């Protein structure tokens, strides 16, 4: 009786590859496969398994999350615009600060704080422009969106009141506090623009 060495699964898989005909290392396996009914049956089972894998049903998403993606892309576009506007303001501020520092009128740490303040003010201005462009007053909105927008506007008004008093000198505010107030304003403005763009439910408010 002679020992028969059948093809391994590795060889059967390799023989299915597009480059198999040019693989000299597979010549013996190919010759064996052509003559061996057992290996041919195994190869056939492998082909059937792959065919069944390909025939598995297409799985589809249960939830439609396109609105989420769209909101994210819109937000990115807006932030890009805000950053550009911020950079414009920043460049101007940097120029002025450079003159002041070189002229010995301001220390570098004061300069950094003023730079931050200019940037965050520029971001706030860009968001104001974005909101004006959306013109929310002229558009109908659902009750929840109107309520959320109202709450955001009230909080912005409170911050504006403090900023005004700081500007008039009636409420002394340290530089870092002032920057924080402006940052808070930018965050609220950003949320407000989002609400008018996508509705309260879409922005998770």
């Amino acid at each position, binding site marked *: 009786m002679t020992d028969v060495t059948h093809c391994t699964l590795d060889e059967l898989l390799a023989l299915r590859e597009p480059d198999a005909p040019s693989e000299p290392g597979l010549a013996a396996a190919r010759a064996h496969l052509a003559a061996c009914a057992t290996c041919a049956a195994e190869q056939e089972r492998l082909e059937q398994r792959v065919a069944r894998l390909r025939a598995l049903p297409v799985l589809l998403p249960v939830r439609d999350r396109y609105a989420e*993606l769209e909101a994210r892309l819109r937000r990115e576009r807006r932030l890009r615009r805000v950053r550009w506007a911020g950079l414009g303001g920043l460049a101007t501020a940097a120029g002025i600060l450079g003159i002041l520092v070189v002229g010995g009128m301001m220390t570098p740490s004061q300069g950094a704080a003023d730079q931050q303040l200019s940037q965050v003010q520029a971001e706030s201005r860009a968001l104001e422009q974005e909101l004006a462009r959306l013109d929310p007053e002229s558009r109908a909105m659902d009750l929840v969106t109107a309520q959320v927008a109202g709450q955001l506007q009230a909080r912005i008004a409170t911050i504006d009141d403090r900023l005004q008093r700081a500007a008039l000198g009636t409420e002394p505010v340290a530089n870092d506090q002032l920057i924080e107030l402006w940052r808070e304003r930018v965050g609220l403005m950003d949320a407000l623009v989002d609400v008018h763009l996508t509705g309260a439910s879409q922005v998770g408010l």
Partner: protein
Amino acid sequence: MAESYLLLNADAVLAEVRAGDPAAFERLYRAFEGPVFNLARRICRTAEDAEDVLQETFYEVHKSLAQYRGEGSLWGWVRTIAASKALMRLRRNKYRDTDELEDDFHPAAPKQDTLLRMDLEAALGRLGDTARSVVWLHDVEGYTHDEIGAMMGKTPSFSKSQLARAHEKLRRWLGEEVA
């Protein structure tokens, strides 16, 4: 498949997307959301992960559209982004990868087609993440071992051996072994 619309109008749709038309981007999304989700779902463990991959894929498509030069099919380009996002998700989650629970899996002897298919789904889901990904990317999506190795940051030999081991297991679990 909705892709047929894009095959006919790909250049026009892409030009509109690049020009910032949100409706055109939604058309692109709708055309490919099914196949992208299916690919992601076959690689990821949960539907939630696959949904996230779908989001990340189209976010990347939107960001990288300027780099798509029309070499190869649009679906091929989108699919490669989806596959790489799904594999990235796997790496991030670091799911179980080697400990298939084969002991409690007992396929019945003769089977009807539906039952066979159910068994195949179950067997596929029982494979480790890497092996399942290789099986799907190679046998169903048609990627080569070189491409799979590159996507996984491994060698083509790694992909080949993962595929062989996976088929050994599938064959055993599905009761297809030669007596």
